[in-house]
């Protein structure tokens, strides 16, 4: 992939979006059969499943905590999800993303309700297009709710960044690779509480503040879609009854 000459043309991005616009996205609750809860998310060309098992007994037992559940997250990319085949198994990047995913979700959990047990969250990226961790968090959040696990609220996530001096919403692959800055954020939108914040690149103070606002707007839009997905799943269940 060669670097494009420009990443912004006449105020529009290479995929035709305005700087403030999210990519098309799709959120489905209950997308898998076996898991206690699950979700499928597309954000642009990202395709991601999340599955939740638990609360269930922890193995091995000495990893359990006496006064709360352990939340375990595993972010994984399918070997065919990226341009150069990814060797199966965890690497340093996926271990870090698994950690920040867990920390993005923990603020909405009531882990103290389930001492000695574990809640497992598995994120599988089938097709990657920049922002896989945010898509994974969006899916995981819905999957947790779909599993019927009590939560304070949903967590919503999007990356903002900077492309040729413009702060933009929800980077896609070319922007991620050739842009200046990438800042994935997760929030509890109604509380404006930020649960994930990472940043690589360059922001002045002003850009940074604007980026936080922009991310907040993006998360709110995704939050609505997450709720809608859960509502649809619930309605379908009701109809089936």
């Amino acid at each position, binding site marked *: 992939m060669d670097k494009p000459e420009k990443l912004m043309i006449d105020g529009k991005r290479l995929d035709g979006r305005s700087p403030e616009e999210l990519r098309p996205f799709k959120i489905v609750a209950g997308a*898998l*059969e*076996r*898991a206690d809860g*699950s979700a499928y998310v597309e954000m642009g*060309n990202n*395709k991601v*499943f*999340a*599955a939740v*098992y638990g609360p*269930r007994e922890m*193995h091995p037992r000495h990893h359990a905590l006496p006064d709360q559940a352990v939340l375990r997250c*595993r972010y*994984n990319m*399918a*070997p*065919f*999800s*990226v*341009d*150069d*085949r990814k060797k*199966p*198994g965890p690497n340093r990047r996926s271990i870090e993303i698994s950690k920040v995913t867990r920390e993005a979700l923990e603020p909405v959990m009531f882990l103290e309700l389930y001492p000695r047990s574990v809640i*497992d969250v*598995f994120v*599988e990226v*089938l*097709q*990657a297009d920049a922002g896989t961790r945010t898509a994974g968090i969006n899916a995981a959040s819905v999957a947790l709710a779909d599993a019927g696990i009590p939560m304070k609220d949903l967590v919503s996530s999007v990356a903002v960044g900077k492309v040729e001096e413009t702060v933009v919403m929800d980077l896609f692959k070319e922007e991620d690779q050739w842009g200046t800055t990438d800042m994935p954020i997760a929030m509890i939108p109604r509380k404006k509480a930020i649960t994930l914040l990472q940043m690589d690149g360059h922001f002045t103070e002003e850009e940074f503040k604007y980026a936080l606002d922009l991310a907040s707007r993006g998360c709110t839009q995704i939050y609505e879609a997450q709720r809608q997905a859960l509502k649809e799943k619930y309605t379908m269940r009701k109809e089936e009854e």
Partner: protein
Amino acid sequence: MAEIVSRVKRDYIASLIQQGKRADGRATDQFREVSVEKDLIKTADGSARVKIGKTHVLVGVKLQKGEPFPDTPDSGVLIVGSELLPMASPTFEVGPPREEAIELARVVDRGIRESESIDLDKLVIKSGEEVWSVFIDIDVLDHDGNLIDASALAAIAALTDVKALKEEGWTLPEFPLKEKPVAVTVVKVNGKLIVDPKLDEEQVMDARLTIVTTEDDSICAMQKGCAGSFQKEEIEQAYVIARGKAAELRKLLG
């Protein structure tokens, strides 16, 4: 740790099968609903999703330049991997692939390799130096039994989805796929043979036999599994069942 099914349920399933019936009403030689979808993953050169009942497998194929094996300098390379994702079953664990996943990948590999499904000799860029490697990666997303048949079908479906590349070094008009092998696993429960076991049926099976056949009904690979045994007549009967079912499944490849 296997998933635990109560003894009562196990006995019920097994005694039904002995009477030629199944808990979900299927005939002994009947598959659950099978769907095959292709061209799902842009980052792969070919992809397919197979669902058999609640079992759900996604396969992506990637072609990459690499070195040939030293003993086959004039052949492309075929590599099949599989991940029994922990999301697919409460009993699948995080970690390196265990024997079940390894056997799955190797049986799928053998069906494709031994049927000469892919004309690997055409995938040479420079003899002894550079060839195309065909990576077939199996992602098991939901496990409700019969993973071998689902994975083998998804693998061959994903191969039919591979188009000619637009990369330097690729000179073929299309991907050289010559044969569509199909795996059918026949399972023995209480002396009866059934196809397409659901997970709870797998938990009561004595033995299984996977038979991979090609379009002319000949056999290109087999694999017996589990702690039981087969009589010769059962194996011959399994072959007849497998070639019939393979013909049905092959139609789904389009």
